[in-house]
């Protein structure tokens, strides 16, 4: 992971290290930190593809306002990954297009 090892002022206290999947790949990140930050630390920069022109989109505002970092998380599309905390075993996928909202019966315990 691309983490800052030494900093003259800040002392980073990361939480528990957890495993999650990104488009089928197993990656590691810290529990409770934003999904988008964990992906970026793993060198993943493209989070979705726009519906019409198929252009890549990624991180941008980091405050849950711009819609750039929408991804499919545990089957649910349009999740603001910059302000959604990472959990062990999450399934994170690149969102292509507008996404399909899962039917209630498919949602399991969500």
């Amino acid at each position, binding site marked *: 992971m691309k983490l*800052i090892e030494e900093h003259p002022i800040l002392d980073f206290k990361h939480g528990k290290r957890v495993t999650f999947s990104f488009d089928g790949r197993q990656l590691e990140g810290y529990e409770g930190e934003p999904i988008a*930050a964990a992906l970026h*630390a793993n060198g993943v*920069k493209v989070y979705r593809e726009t519906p019409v022109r198929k252009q890549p989109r*990624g991180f941008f*505002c980091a405050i849950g*306002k*711009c819609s750039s970092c929408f991804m499919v998380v545990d089957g649910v599309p349009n999740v603001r990954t910059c*302000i959604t905390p990472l959990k062990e075993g999450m399934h994170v996928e690149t969102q292509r297009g507008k996404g399909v909202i899962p039917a209630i019966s498919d949602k399991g315990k969500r």
Partner: protein
Amino acid sequence: MRTLRETDVMVIGGGPAGLSAAAEAASFGCDVTLVESDLALGGQLIKQTHKFFGSKDERAGTRGFKISELLLEELSGYGNVKAYTNCTATGYYPEDGVVTCVRAEDEYFKIKPKKIVMATGAQERLIPFPNNHLPGVYGAGAVQTLMNVYGVKPGDKVLMVGAGNIGLIVSYQLIQAGVQVAGIVEAMDKVGGYWVHAAKVRRLGVPIYLRHTIVEAIGEQYVTGAVIQEIDERFQPQGERKSVDVDIICMAVGLSPTCELLWQAGCEMVFVPELCGYVAQRDRNMRTSHKDIWVAGDAAGIEEASSAMVEGRIAGVSTARALGRGTHEEHEKRLAEYHRRLDDLRGGEVGEKICQGLSCCTVDCWEV
């Protein structure tokens, strides 16, 4: 949507203004509910590693993230404050005064407050250039979040767009985080930020290209470079196009107040260029044209964190007074003190533009 929570004062936004408003209202015994869309309280303060300027009353000389810790400590002393993080206020319904909220992405609830302080902060601006949609073109605040909150290196080499205080400070912070800064481009013919911040990055060998702008981002899936060019008096690019080999283009080209909820509530709004966008008209104690809604911090006009904290305190006292909490003497005493502090912060050359802007949106008092 079955749950309806009631509260005396709802504070929307847990940055410097919101935390200050919450603490102040709580000190008068008001029951306060604060919602913050981020995962942590503190707003932009938690990303600031530099020591603040301003005045001693607003903790000049203390690093931003420490100021946030002090505010949270103050707030933790009150049992009557409930704060929700990862919680976005999504709408205000004027017919019954209800605010809808979503916690995480799937838990919805409603709050019916007696009074509201909108301390929703600001959002970053973007300028148009080909490929500005590419991943790797990030707002300065986003870059700060990655590196200063989560310890993630945003990239290896950065082009900074904008030499205002944010562009200069974030450039310095990038270097602290071990990231190379290829240069800073600034469309104006002088640095917009404080001289001391510019001197710090220049000493570290970062070139500041005045009268330059970014004309294109290079890359297929994400940024692999940028093209910069000189601009003439009419901001038209001229001369040689220079390629810079960078993987991050950091945009520090200004902020706009976040004001959607104020529009929804029907507050009287006015466009004030000096305050960087549409802002609510307000009286001296930050009350908007809506009798139950106050505004504070960047949402009331782009300024900086020190004045945001004082505006928050003023709004907090004023909501408590409107609810009949506390004594007249105490309200008057605190308001006089906070107005003195605001005037101090806005004194001098830097505050002139702000004062000019404020004169366009401040009313003496609202008609009853």
